[in-house]
């Protein structure tokens, strides 16, 4: 396969963008990514979007976005893996380029979640779980992660405080991200006393409802120098896996096997292990998710994710900084866009262009994006070229 470089990234401010429609939100991000390169004509475009249908009654997302991006006739499609749709778009774009079928490809992600009521958003998000055997019986998304949280707490002694530390850390990171939806600090007490959603998870354990998009542009490594003036970033590891759609059908609900399998694949391809990763963006849709995922990725032994966040090992300046962008918690979680925003952050860090968020010696970054209660995961490893 051809080596693939990321040559452009774009991400506007996320939030409740009442004045912008689905197409506006996406095009803004895509234009930023194009402006980050010398490219003006794309060969292909793949867009992660979880549910254009349920959120705004609009499917055919590839065609509408190519149209409004002003690239008439552009080959464009939409991909979906629930909240990992963005990660899947990145993978499919890489496949287009690596195969030689296309040269310059935009991988984007978008979700417009505030055009429906809260109930409408709950219904749409629940479509990522087993509609007949989870949702039918009263499961909600926070509820599924709460089931995992209790099991993890009872098995490993993970504490309520440790969950809260994830939120505190990510909101702190988010204060340095001008694109974050909620770029403010939260305290341990605020998290622990916030409104109960699904015991033990409270509202500040949950990522928000967000409108937003992000876009990145990939091309063959040998063309990259001609198409950008920015430092080059190379995709060195890819991994993808699924697991049972229903949480109750998984072998072990205190880990995310899809993440473990996808990470193994990505590590093997990159010739790297968890210890070689300088920083990571992981899918903290709920505080418990970040703890479990840092274990499933191999950054910590099973059960050690909670103590690690409490000890500051995943903070800025810690052993392995996690979610320097603010994560889904602070940055927001427009489901289809999240996986691409992770790539955005990693490229910014690897370029040394992350502003106030920049860490030193960012050479190897990992993105982990998952769908539903962990039934799908995409892992990508990116390195300074």
């Amino acid at each position, binding site marked *: 396969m051809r080596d693939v470089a990321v040559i452009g990234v774009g991400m506007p401010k996320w939030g409740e963008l009442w004045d912008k429609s689905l197409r506006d939100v996406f095009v803004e991000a895509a234009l930023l990514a194009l402006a980050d390169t010398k490219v003006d004509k794309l060969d292909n475009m793949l867009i992660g979007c979880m549910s254009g249908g349920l959120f705004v009654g609009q499917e055919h997302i590839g065609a509408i976005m190519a149209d409004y991006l002003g690239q008439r006739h552009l080959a464009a499609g939409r991909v979906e893996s629930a909240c990992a749709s963005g990660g899947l778009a990145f993978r499919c774009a890489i496949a287009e380029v690596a195969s030689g079928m296309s040269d310059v490809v935009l991988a984007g992600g978008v979700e417009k979640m505030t055009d429906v009521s809260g109930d409408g958003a709950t*219904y749409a998000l629940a479509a990522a779980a087993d509609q007949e055997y989870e949702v*039918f*019986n*009263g*499961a909600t998304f926070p509820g599924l992660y709460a*089931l995992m949280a209790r099991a993890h707490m*009872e098995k490993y002694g993970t504490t309520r405080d440790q969950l809260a530390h994830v939120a505190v850390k990510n909101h702190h990171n988010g204060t340095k991200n001008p694109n974050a939806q909620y770029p403010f600090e939260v305290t341990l007490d605020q998290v622990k006393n916030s409104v109960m959603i699904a015991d033990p998870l409270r509202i500040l354990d949950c990522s928000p409802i967000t409108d937003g998009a992000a876009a990145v542009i990939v091309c063959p490594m040998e063309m990259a120098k001609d198409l950008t003036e920015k430092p080059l970033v190379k995709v060195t590891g890819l991994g993808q896996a699924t697991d049972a759609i229903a949480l109750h059908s998984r072998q072990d609900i205190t880990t995310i096997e899809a993440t473990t399998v996808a990470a193994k694949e990505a590590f093997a391809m990159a010739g790297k292990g968890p210890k070689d990763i300088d920083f990571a963006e992981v899918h903290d849709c709920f505080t418990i998710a970040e703890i479990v995922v840092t274990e499933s990725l191999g950054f910590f032994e099973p059960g050690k994710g909670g103590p690690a966040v409490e000890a500051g090992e995943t903070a800025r300046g810690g052993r392995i900084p996690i979610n320097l962008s603010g994560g889904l918690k602070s940055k927001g979680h427009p489901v289809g866009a999240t996986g691409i925003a992770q790539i955005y952050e990693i490229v910014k860090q690897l370029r040394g262009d992350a502003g106030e968020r920049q860490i030193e010696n960012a050479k190897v970054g990992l993105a982990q994006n998952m769908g539903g209660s962990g039934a799908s995961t995409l892992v990508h490893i990116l390195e300074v070229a």
Partner: protein
Amino acid sequence: MFPARYAREMPHRYRLEAHKCKQCGKVFVPRREICDKCGATEFEVIRLSDRVKLVTYTIIHTPASQFKDQSPYALGICEFPEGVRLTAQVVDIDFADLKTGMDLQVEFRRIQTDGHEGILSYGYKFVPVI
């Protein structure tokens, strides 16, 4: 909910029917075309026991619209002796008495009044052992 869709799941939801792989014995709800353990495609229909163990649980405070009249409610994953696990509400019990590992039994109950068309839906819930 459209009637055909609801009717398809009735054997599982009403009678706790499960499908047991004729080759390796793994039990599935709902039915499958192929066993994910051994790859066999022949199954026999069995009825699950109605005694289960609570694996994990939560109390849902912000449910979907069709469950708002029942909020807050407990939701649990329970394991059947046949090895299969299912997610359902745990009812007729004080939240404070819920305990991982406890024995529960399965009963046939009303699940929801469907939001759009007002059809009553029935299925299984977990309740204390009497």
